[in-house]
């Protein structure tokens, strides 16, 4: 019995191997992998190319060594963001703002002043967020703060949300949704712990670009898996074979899953690895709100958890898009139409985004493209109510598209199993 299972597994593996070989034997597939490598290089360069450190002479430095200096400066300000720490930052900032360099009209002198603010720059930005407008970020809001304002730092986050909900944001939410947002803000454990986390910030920032291109290429590679038999007229032999309507179909699914998974995770890990190598990997245990970009996020999670949401969300999206385009490929027998599916599903929201409709925005908030840009989606204040239950779009996206992936996989298997050669 055991040896029979081994033999069957061996045969299944061989079928999967040949399915993968069918995909990569094509020159176009090899070229698309080369394109993916170029995309990875471009995105990594994009993520690291802009990073700069300004030295004490006001000159910009770039490269990994410069980033190490910046990191060293920021690490001096690490620790809990208590009133005392915030007060110290406000004092330091006022002192630097009052210095001759900061008041000078000379750009070089201004840069020298800026150089002194880099270490606490992230905390200064948080102060600007807390005491500035809720929607529009006012970079200079921190300039007008007094040391005694520090104690209002966390309350200000909640009060500015409430002010916004009572004002311009009022029409967007139901009372339950407003209460949910406020309670999420109140549930944030304070004081926040601050650590240098520029590496993660950069990983998040460029991740949508990488994930979207990766999906396009995976889509291109998988578009032919379920239509090649019909395209090449090999379907008669395929379906009339012993495993043709069962294991061979499963092998196709396995091969597709393997190709999508390997390419996706290799891209994600290489990208993450490179960016974190360049910037440093610290700060993953801090709350996302300890960073300028995450200040308004209502999900109370750590930076590391956000990373997991981004890559797992991307993976769920990758699986969903793969399954959908394979289903279209199997039904229409057209790899071209199938390969266009990710493009279409990314293009539609871009076009509809300009339409001013709350309902449409809610629908767009749970469209599958959001999975590829969790780093942006998580920052949106999109809420969905079912009865008294209020939740953000992230859990809906995960559950909905994982379920759809499984359903499509099943439909795909069944439809291919029952296909006729006419």
């Amino acid at each position, binding site marked *: 019995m055991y040896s029979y299972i081994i033999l069957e597994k061996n045969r299944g593996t061989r079928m999967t191997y040949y399915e993968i*070989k*069918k995909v990569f034997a*094509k020159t176009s597939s090899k070229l698309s992998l080369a394109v993916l490598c170029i995309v990875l290089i471009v995105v990594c360069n994009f993520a690291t190319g802009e990073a700069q450190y300004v030295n004490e002479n006001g000159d910009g430095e770039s490269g990994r060594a410069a980033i190490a200096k910046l990191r060293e400066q920021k690490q001096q300000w690490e620790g809990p963001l208590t009133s005392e720490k915030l007060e110290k930052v406000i004092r330091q900032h006022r002192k630097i703002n009052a210095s001759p360099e900061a008041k000078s009209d000379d750009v070089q002198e201004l840069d020298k002043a800026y150089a002194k603010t880099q270490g606490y720059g992230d905390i200064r930005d948080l102060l600007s967020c807390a005491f500035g407008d809720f929607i529009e970020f006012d970079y200079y809001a921190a300039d007008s703060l007094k040391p005694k304002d520090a104690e209002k730092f966390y309350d200000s986050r909640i009060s500015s949300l409430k002010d916004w909900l009572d004002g311009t944001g009022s029409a967007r939410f139901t009372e339950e949704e407003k209460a949910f947002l406020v309670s999420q803000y109140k549930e944030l454990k304070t004081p926040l712990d601050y650590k240098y986390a520029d590496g993660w910030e950069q990983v998040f920032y460029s991740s949508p670009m990488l994930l979207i291109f990766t999906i396009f290429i995976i889509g291109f590679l998988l578009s032919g898996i379920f239509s090649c038999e019909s395209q*090449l*007229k090999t379907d*008669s032999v395929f379906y009339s074979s*012993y495993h043709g309507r069962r294991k*061979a179909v499963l092998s196709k699914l396995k091969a597709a899953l393997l190709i999508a998974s390997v390419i996706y995770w290799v891209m994600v890990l290489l990208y993450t690895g490179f960016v974190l190598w360049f910037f440093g990997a610290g700060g993953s245990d801090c709350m996302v709100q300890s960073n300028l970009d995450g200040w308004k996020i209502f999900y109370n999670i750590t930076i590391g958890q956000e990373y997991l949401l981004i890559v797992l969300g991307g993976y769920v999206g990758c699986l969903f898009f793969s399954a959908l385009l394979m289903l279209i490929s199997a039904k229409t027998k057209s790899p071209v139409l199938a390969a266009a599916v990710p493009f279409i599903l990314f293009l539609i929201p871009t076009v509809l985004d300009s339409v001013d409709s709350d309902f449409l925005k809610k629908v767009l908030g749970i469209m599958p493209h959001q999975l590829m840009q969790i780093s942006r989606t998580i920052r949106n204040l999109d809420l969905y109510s079912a009865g008294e239950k209020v939740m953000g779009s992230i859990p809906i996206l995960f559950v909905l598209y994982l379920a759809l992936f499984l359903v499509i996989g099943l439909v795909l298997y069944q439809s291919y199993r029952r296909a*006729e050669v006419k």
Partner: protein
Amino acid sequence: MELKLENLTKEFQGFTAVDHINYTMRNGVYGLLGENGAGKTTLMRMLCTLIKPTGGKITCDGEDVFSMDGQYRKLLGYLPQDFGYYPDFTARDYLLYVSSIKGLRPATAKKRVEDLLTKVGLAKTAGKKMKKLSGGMKRRVGIAQAMLNNPKILVLDEPTAGLDPNERIRFRNLISELSEERLVLLSTHIVSDVAYIANQILLMKRGRIEHTGTAEQIISSMPEKVWICKADKKLVPALQKRYKLANVKTGASNTVEVRILSAKRPFSEAVQAEASLEDVFLYYFGEKSGDENDLL
């Protein structure tokens, strides 16, 4: 092994491609002859479980082949009319892949593939990509894939179509060789192929099997006789209107030798000739049946 077609019918949107066929096949070579659109391919596809009948059933040793599912396909080898291939696979890879979907164990598959490559004369070109093989070579890979699982039922749909004469002869010999102890159903409109290898011939027309029997029985079933005579070239159109012409051979000084199918002697100088399967084919299906280049 007994393959039984019971009231087998297939309709496509009002068009009946296969019309209530009843027939039983056992081991041996069966040649399915018919004009284009007679329903040969539809019948074969149903036999290979590629399409489901709209009526009737196919049983293998008493069991419905669609219910048997994989167990039936395990017995099956099929060379389709439009044999497709994976262009970037080598012949060997292609056969190894088909072996895997036919459920052969890897070690068995490897040996079987090498044996068949030798048998079909492709041992030296097995490493070449399929897209670089000639039409005849691809067809030989096709027959090899059909034989991989040593099938008890071998279905060959137009196996010699598009092959040059040498390839055709080679192919016919190969099929004869492979036909021992199995049921081979061979569809073609190349009459000479069937005459050469089939034990039983099935004449199919408009979805029905009109006549069955050995080549001799089929020939003797034709009510008309075959006559050969010489005539003026100018008379050919008139003769075509009046008789079925099996062949027109141009001779010297505006004369032609015509082969006429007629119950009565068409001319006093006409000489009766022995009827062939090609004459029968012409009689039942008419001049425009089949691939004109291959027919005679």
